[in-house]
């Protein structure tokens, strides 16, 4: 955790739950290392709840290392990678080269069947404070220059992004007594599906504090723009995690929030979230001390900007393997994303696929109809990005179906069967939960009374008795003030059964809330999946393809993004409906030819996959 001392948030929490559903580590480690757990968006509907926690950096590191070093059959070796070892490509796959290992900075080699690169901000990383710039991946670490050159030489399209981090402040120098205090949730909601509780009691957790900028801060920023080269650079920074300089420039005359967040249980550092800045260090300190509560604050480390290389993510497949180099996978900031959670999501998918690739198994791809991970990777691989990409719930068109509560139902079973990445214990729990939910919903649908009878049974609910149609228990559960507990009091048999497991009871309530819209959403999802089941041949050379009538412009776009399905192709801006139909026709011809060659009874395997996909989505 080299930037903010927190995990999760809105959209990001969704990604974490999905990583956990695939048995990724970050949720479980966060449940052992948090110091302040808080679910965001509590009042806005369970589909957009954001699990979030302040994390103790030291504990996270310790717990993560313990977990990794105790993983059977895993060898951990530390060292900077300088170069890739490349060999001839496998003829049955696309790609100009094949990676077979890496060369470390000391000249030693590590051979590997597949390689995942997660370079963070290290590729030609450059740190900026005021007018000073020096090469570094992050403060105190060398950048990765050799590797960046290798990748560029191989023909990858390279871009440049920037980000920043705020200064750190000594805890004892802050006057918290005059600031707004925020206490954690009670009880704490764990991140992981397999945890009932977190490691620490709510009363033992640390508070956060809120303060604000003021016109003096604006003044310091505006007067010293000439001393601030990070702000002037043309490199794209995020619009949604801006430095205090860009906030002041874009939204003048406003007050901005600054959250004072603990870095850990026994840490004496405070992370002022919202104060990312690249002014010269002495001006940073001057700026800090004009903020309320920070009048006597001591800055222990200045904030700084980082500029780094990323590779246009349209050069990778949805399994995160590069088009150019076989068995080479990219994950995290190298693909233009920002944030731990986005990185974790890609890390899980890249890791799973690196392993599947070695075992000659089909890739494990999550569709955008199945998860935020799918949305993230589909956006990156079909649209690319020109600013650090961060997840929002508004990016997911099927937001009401892709909820934090049901990530296990969506992904755990697939992960277990197709990727083999899920533990037996988790698999069994997810299977039990899924079937209990389905049973519960069908029971709730089967109980029907008139609305006046419901009104008598549950006087607390604001049921309008005007309706002539009978109401199902599931409809009654939709009312805000009704939960399973209340329903079970009214209809103990058979509903009492469903109050025993708290998680099950809560999830049934959520399912009821979204039941009415889920039908429409399922229809749309099927339409998307139908197009995604139609795969485009991986080795298609769009520039020279003769059998398909496509414009030059469309050819170039397809050539660069290399969409794997008709669905992905149709989301590329500038690819027309007519071009899609031509591609469809081509796919169909190819399939028929293939089928004839294989002499298979079924001529249309790819289309048959549609049914499989449809069954998967329930």
């Amino acid at each position, binding site marked *: 955790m080299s930037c*903010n001392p927190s995990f999760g948030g*809105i*959209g990001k929490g969704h990604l974490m739950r999905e990583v956990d559903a695939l048995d990724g580590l970050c949720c479980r480690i966060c449940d052992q290392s948090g110091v302040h757990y*808080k679910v*965001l*968006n509590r009042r*806005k*509907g*369970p*589909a*957009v709840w*954001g699990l979030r926690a302040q994390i103790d950096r030291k504990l996270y590191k310790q717990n993560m290392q313990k977990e990794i070093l105790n993983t059977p059959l895993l060898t951990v070796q530390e060292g900077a990678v300088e170069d890739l070892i490349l060999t001839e490509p496998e003829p049955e796959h696309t790609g100009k080269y094949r990676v077979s290992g890496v060369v470390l900075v000391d000249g030693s080699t590590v051979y590997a069947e597949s390689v995942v690169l997660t370079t963070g901000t290290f590729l030609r990383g450059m740190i900026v404070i005021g007018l000073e710039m020096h090469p570094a991946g992050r403060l105190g670490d060398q950048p990765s220059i050799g590797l960046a050159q290798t990748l560029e030489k191989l023909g990858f399209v390279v871009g440049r992004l920037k980000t920043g981090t705020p200064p750190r402040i000594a805890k004892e120098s802050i006057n918290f007594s005059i600031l707004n205090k*925020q206490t954690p949730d009670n009880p704490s909601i764990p991140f992981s599906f397999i945890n009932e509780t977190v490691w620490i009691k709510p009363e033992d957790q640390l508070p956060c504090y*809120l303060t*604000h900028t003021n016109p003096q801060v604006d003044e310091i920023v505006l007067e010293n723009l000439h001393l601030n080269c990070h702000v002037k650079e043309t490199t794209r920074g995020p619009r*949604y*995690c*801006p430095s205090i300089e860009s*906030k002041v420039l*874009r*939204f003048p005359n*406003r*007050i*901005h929030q600054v*959250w004072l967040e603990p870095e850990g249980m026994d840490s004496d550092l405070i992370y002022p*979230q*919202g104060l*990312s800045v690249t002014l010269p260090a002495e001006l940073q300190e001057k700026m800090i001390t004009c903020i309320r509560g920070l009048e006597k604050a001591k800055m222990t480390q200045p904030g700084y900007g980082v500029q780094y290389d990323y590779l246009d993510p349209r050069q990778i497949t949805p399994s995160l393997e590069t088009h150019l180099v076989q068995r080479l996978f990219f994950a995290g900031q190298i693909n233009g994303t920002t944030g731990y959670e986005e990185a974790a999501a890609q890390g899980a998918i890249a890791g799973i696929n690196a392993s599947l690739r070695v075992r000659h198994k089909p890739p494990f791809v999550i569709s955008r109809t199945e998860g935020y991970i799918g949305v993230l990777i589909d956006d990156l691989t079909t649209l690319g990005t020109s600013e650090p990409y961060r997840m929002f*719930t*508004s990016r997911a*068109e099927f*937001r*009401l179906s892709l909820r934090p509560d049901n990530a296990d139902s969506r992904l755990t079973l697939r992960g277990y*069967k197709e990727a083999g990445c899920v533990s037996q214990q988790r698999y069994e729990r997810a299977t039990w939960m899924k*079937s209990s939910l*389905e*049973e519960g*919903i*069908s029971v709730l*649908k*089967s109980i*029907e009374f008139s609305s006046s009878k419901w009104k008598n049974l549950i006087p607390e609910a604001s049921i309008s008795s005007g309706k002539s149609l009978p109401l199902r228990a599931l409809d009654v559960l939709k009312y805000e003030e009704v939960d399973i507990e209340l329903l079970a009091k009214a209809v103990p048999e058979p509903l009492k059964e469903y109050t025993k497991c708290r998680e099950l009871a809560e999830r049934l309530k959520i399912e009821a*809330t*979204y039941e009415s*819209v889920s039908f*429409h959403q399922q*229809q749309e999802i*099927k*339409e998307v999946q*139908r197009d995604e089941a139609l795969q485009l041949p991986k080795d298609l050379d769009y520039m020279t393809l003769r059998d398909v009538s496509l414009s030059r412009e469309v050819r170039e776009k397809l050539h660069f993004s290399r969409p794997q399905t008709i669905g992905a192709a149709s989301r590329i801006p500038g690819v*027309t409906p*007519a*071009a899609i*139909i*031509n591609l*469809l*026709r081509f796919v*169909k011809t190819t399939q028929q030819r293939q089928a004839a060659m294989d002499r298979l009874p079924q001529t249309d395997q790819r289309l048959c996959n549609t049914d499989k996909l449809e*069954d998967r989505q*329930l």
Partner: protein
Amino acid sequence: MWRGLWTLVARPARGPRSPRPCTRQGSGAPAHGSGATIFALSSGQGRCGIAVIRTSGPASGQALRSLTAPRDLPPARKACLRLLSDPRSEEPLDRALVLWFPGPQSFTGEDCAEFHVHGGPAVVSGVLQALGSVPGLRPAEAGEFTRRAFAHGKLSLTEVEGLADLIHAETEAQRRQALRQLDGELSHLCRGWAETLTKALAHVEAYIDFGEDDNLEEGVLDQGGSAWGVGGGDIWHLSPQRPPYSLSFPPSTADSEVRELEVALGAHLRDARRGQRLRSGAHVVVAGPPNAGKSSLVNLLSRKPVSIVSPEPGTTRDVLETPVDLAGFPALLSDTAGLREGVGPVEQEGVRRAQKRLEQADLILAVLDASDLASASSCNFLDTVVIPAGAGSPNGSSQRLLLVLNKSDLLPAGGPDPSPDLPPHLLLSCLTGEGLDGFLEALRKELAALCGDPSTGPPLLTRARYQHHLQGCLDALGHYKQAKDLALAAEALRVARGHLTRITGGGGTEEILDIIFRDFCVGK
């Protein structure tokens, strides 16, 4: 194996295992494994003997049952004569041949229905609109039938050769048609609505995605809606007193904008009776002072002696209605009593009825005597009827008016225009027929504006789409208001916006994000 297991697990959710199977699902519930059901006019556009309207998808059976009088499905693949009526109003539409093709033995491989109706534009538009009102049905996108057929393996590769061209052409035609249909006022309206909705949605999305995590300044959403036009960041200010993380305020900017939009859409849908006009005829009311020649004009237009004509003022005392075909459009032509005061009680009642009919008119043919413009009754009529209508009525009705100066034969030949100060007008002589061609052409233009022009390409389809999406948008806005859960509220806005952007184009997520980052300072 994977699939089998899943089906097994999935079963209880669909109901059969529960003690009392849910009757609500009924037979109308769309079949498993299905998308939306689409409909379109499959035969040529414009006037023709028979028009074929087709549906494809799981709700096809439901659609067929909803429109046909005996509510059972006809035998598969057998043509049956059925009375079609609008399921909402029960209004009969046509007596038509219907065919039922249960999937997979159909053109698309899905359940399909065909309605072979009489080819008049009124009938076709009526049936399309009736179909649009059946739950689960939506107008087809360009080439969608063929594409579904293709996806279900129903078309050979040679058959599909021309599909891309077809879709390209259809898309182009639809685009041109949409432009034509939506030019001017309507297009302006639609774009305005879409923008309002995109902005409202962006603000709700910002509230969801950045309200708590990203220090989205509190109170930004409960500012007055009018302030948003500026799009700047200096309008709202933080209220630091508000405790952190207790952002319980509703996104009321979005709320008020949505409310306004709802009113506007509702009014528009009620007002834009174009489809209905085309079906039942536009109301054309002939009005004017006594003895201006109104009845002569009615007789001329209906080509039969509907009204008694005499030189005596006040001959027509009641409202006389006659259905006519005016320049290819169906119209209900009403002759009215001349407007004047201070006469006997019978004629007075006639005047009252004439005025009432005037209020309901889609098109007023205002008739004045060209040789008698200075008279009190002419001036009074100009002041009370013609001028207000020309100024555009404040209640926003779409009433139109055509001013005709009759009896041009009484004017001195080759003389100057008798009335340069009048609003735009036409000279006509019902007696000699002089000026009739010009008048008919002007009338055709007016009616085309009122009814939509059925002779230019596929406007019926466009209109059905247009109305379908506006209604869909309105329904979704209703859901937005009811939703307690903000994610559901946002979904309703997404659906509403989806309907509008189907009309106007655009509608990506980036558009929303752009507004968010323009309007809000989000970030840690």
